[in-house]
């Protein structure tokens, strides 16, 4: 077992983990962060995407020990004081989810995407989400939601010096 200390959604945790434990399983099973889900076992689907120090990572493709000393944000840590993150609001507003299983990963990846590229074209968004699979929506409303969130965030971003 290896001791790790991580900050997840604002709270600090120090835990003993098996070195082979995937970050996503640590989040789900030891911390109860079940908002982050597992959709495949090959890193293709992106359902488990979280932020590690503000950048998106597939939490099935990292070991928990690799997160030692880092800060993680999951879908559960996005809303602040009951206020949805603009990306969450945009997904709701534009019907960018149906079953909702890919949604946590999709939202986390989309936030990273517009942090990188505040004014993406539809094609930029599609390429930026290539690593996140959705079986329900055909992606069209996801693209629309990300576009809307980017549009809403862009002026704010320049004023506040960053959307995050």
């Amino acid at each position, binding site marked *: 077992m290896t001791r790790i200390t991580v900050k997840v959604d604002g709270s600090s945790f120090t835990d003993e983990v*098996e070195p*082979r434990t995937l970050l996503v399983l640590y989040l*789900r099973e030891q911390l109860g*962060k*079940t*908002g*982050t*889900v*597992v*959709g*495949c*076992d*090959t890193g*293709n*689907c992106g*359902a488990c995407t979280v932020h590690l120090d503000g950048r998106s990572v597939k939490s099935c493709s990292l070991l928990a020990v690799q997160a030692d000393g880092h800060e993680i944000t*999951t*879908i*559960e840590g*996005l*809303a602040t004081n009951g206020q*949805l993150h603009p990306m*969450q*609001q945009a*997904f*709701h*507003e534009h*019907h960018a*989810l*149906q*079953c*909702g*299983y*890919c*949604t*946590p990963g999709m*939202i986390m990846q989309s936030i990273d995407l517009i942090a990188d590229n505040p004014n993406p074209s*539809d*094609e930029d*968004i*599609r*390429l930026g*989400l*290539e*690593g*996140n*699979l*959705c*079986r*329900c*929506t*055909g*992606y*069209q*409303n*996801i*693209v629309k939601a990300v576009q809307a969130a980017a549009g809403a965030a862009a002026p704010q971003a320049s004023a506040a010096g960053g959307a995050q």
Partner: protein
Amino acid sequence: MTATEERPATEIGASRRRKEDARLITGRTRWTDNIVLPGLQHIAMVRSPFAHARITSIDAEAAKAASGVVAVITGADIADEQGALPNAWAIIPDQKAPVHPSMAVDHVAFAGEIVAMVIARTAAEANDAADLVDVDYEELEPALELKAAARDEVIAHPDLGTNVSAVWSYDSAESGTGGDVEAAIAAARDGGIVIEEEFRQQRLIPAFMEPRSIVVDPTTEQMTVWSATQVPHFVKIFIALVLGIPESKVRVIAPDVGGGFGGKLQFTPEEVLTVIAARRTGKPCKYTETRSESLMAAHHGRDQWQQVTLAANADGTVTGLKVELIADMGAYLGLVTSAIPLLGAFMYNGIYKFPAYHIGITNVFTNKTWTDAYRGAGRPEATYAIERLMDELAARVGVDALEIRERNWIKHEEFPFSTVSGLRYDSGNYEAATAKARELFGYDDLRAEQRKRRESGDPVQLGIGVSTFTEMCGLAPSRWLGSMGYVGGGWEHAAVRMLPTGKVEVVTGTSPHGQGHETAWSQLVADRLGVAFEDVEVLHGDTQVAVRGLDTYGSRSLAVGGMAVLAAADKVIEKAKPIAAQLLEANADDLDFSGGRYGVRGTDAGMTMAELAFAVFQGHKLDGSAEGCLDADATLDPDDFSFPHGTHLCAVEVDTETGATKIRSYVCVDDVGVVVNPMIVEGQVHGGIAQGIAQALFEEALHDDSGTLVTGSFDQYTLPAAPDLPTFETARTETPATTNQLGVKGVGEAGTIASTPAVVNAIVDALRPLGVTDVPMPCTPYRVWTAIQKSASQEGSRS
């Protein structure tokens, strides 16, 4: 989250944002795999790596001795306990089928079949120990190819003696719904047109995003089973029937379920085995499949071979249609495996007026994963065949693909129309949908561009694909299902209850897994009872709450389940009437119900439903002459299916040098009748089209010569990602169905049914000047390129 939304003038037709989203976008979700119970044990399955083999021995000693292992169970251990998995649809009385064990005892019939399970303290310990279970197999030759299987070249189940499960046919001359197809074909061979084609409906994998998961708690008075299923009510009944547990002792809950597409319309080996594990150990048990297991062992879809013959007059008027198909059941019959081709059998004639029709179906076993429902279930296959044929007919006659359809389709004034396959289409307007699609698509301009590219010999050719589809959906009439050999019914149940505080509790027997019933059913009830959308709570997916129901599949939920909700709401309004009369001291005949309020005609006196609900709760002023209760149940069984239709148009650019296909534009006009929530309907269409395009271009479950699934992960089984799909332009016409009170039709499967032939027709259209008349699916660049090379060499050898 709905605070900023304006209240719509009418709930029916309002794009209400979904109630479901609140938990799904914040991660406060209730997936089955999230469930943790005190003392929870974890299961890992040991699965056969061979498609066809005898189990000669299993040594589980090392696994049993491993850390944390509670038990290792083999098929021999539970041979007398596990019963057999059910097939609910014998399409002929003497349908043949092997016994379908949840865990193989001595014979495995597909790669992925479960041969043992390990129960351990943690999932990791269970998985580690599963690797230690030593199974010896004697390999047998697998039956893999469906046509060879139909000839019994290799037998998938030696005990059965044949691979043929059932042979079924429908003939319009025999049934009195039309003429003799052989005569029609013979006549067409003499001066008319006969088109003969073979189409392969490749094997697909539903690939819902949430892997299947089951948790069983045996420590409660009723055994509680959580399952990521579309059909909790089915699962409850079958646990009772298969495992001999009284139905009243089983509670099944489908919590949040992450997609299904027919793939979770099943009663599974994993459900049976998790129940057995929990029952044997007396402790809660969980099984969650990996994606690799899901792709290998959750049922597959499609996998049919079709031989079709279309007869027509020289002017392109269709005179007959003959279909012979072989359907691959895979290794076993699941719930409705045998009936998937049957669900297509009535749709091959599509929207056209065929005077004669014959279909013959041969269901065969192979040593592959069993097939069953996948979005559209039989109807995509039928629609593909007829829509591909109509394009070929247009080419032979030398007219436009839309024109050939118009010459043959049922005109809007001809409804209701009795078809050659014996269905009664209640309504439709193919002219209106097609005219609208044609305009949105810019059909004539694209044809002009196509001509230019053809004339200039552009290496990138433009193709235009047409699909004017209809489908039978809203499963549905119990009498029809019974007449076809299905053991279950097709009714749906609902309850509507006025709560003392004026809120409304709605219970539905449908079981949504992405379709938004919580939102749409709230709209239905808010509209009918005149209460606020926010005040309606929709409960579902728990057999102790939604006691009766037949769940969600076959685009049935709104047309059947939603109408049951309305029927229950209507009963509540009726029950409220004598109560209102008492409380208002008025004659019931003088009361009108409007805007959620019973008013005394000609006066200001009246009471809202909320006021009535509270008065009923108190009971102080009721005189006992009417039941003091504003709860009602309703069961509804429609007289017929609903028949949505639409026109889908696809433009593709095909690079004739590389075979690469790019969808340039996709326009569809769907007619799904009256729409409750256009936003949800549009979302269903988007997702449906995406899955249909996936069949046309990307997906195929492939096995190697030994029967191993080659496409066993998302690396190889390539679901389309966002860059693979275009933006769809969707629109609607609205021709109300006449078979339900609101005029709604199903929409869940429409996009998938329509889009596959639209895309392939477009590809073939692009390449027709090169002599290409078909490209097998999925139309990968390699296959498109190969088709081009093949026709070029044929042209060369002819010249």
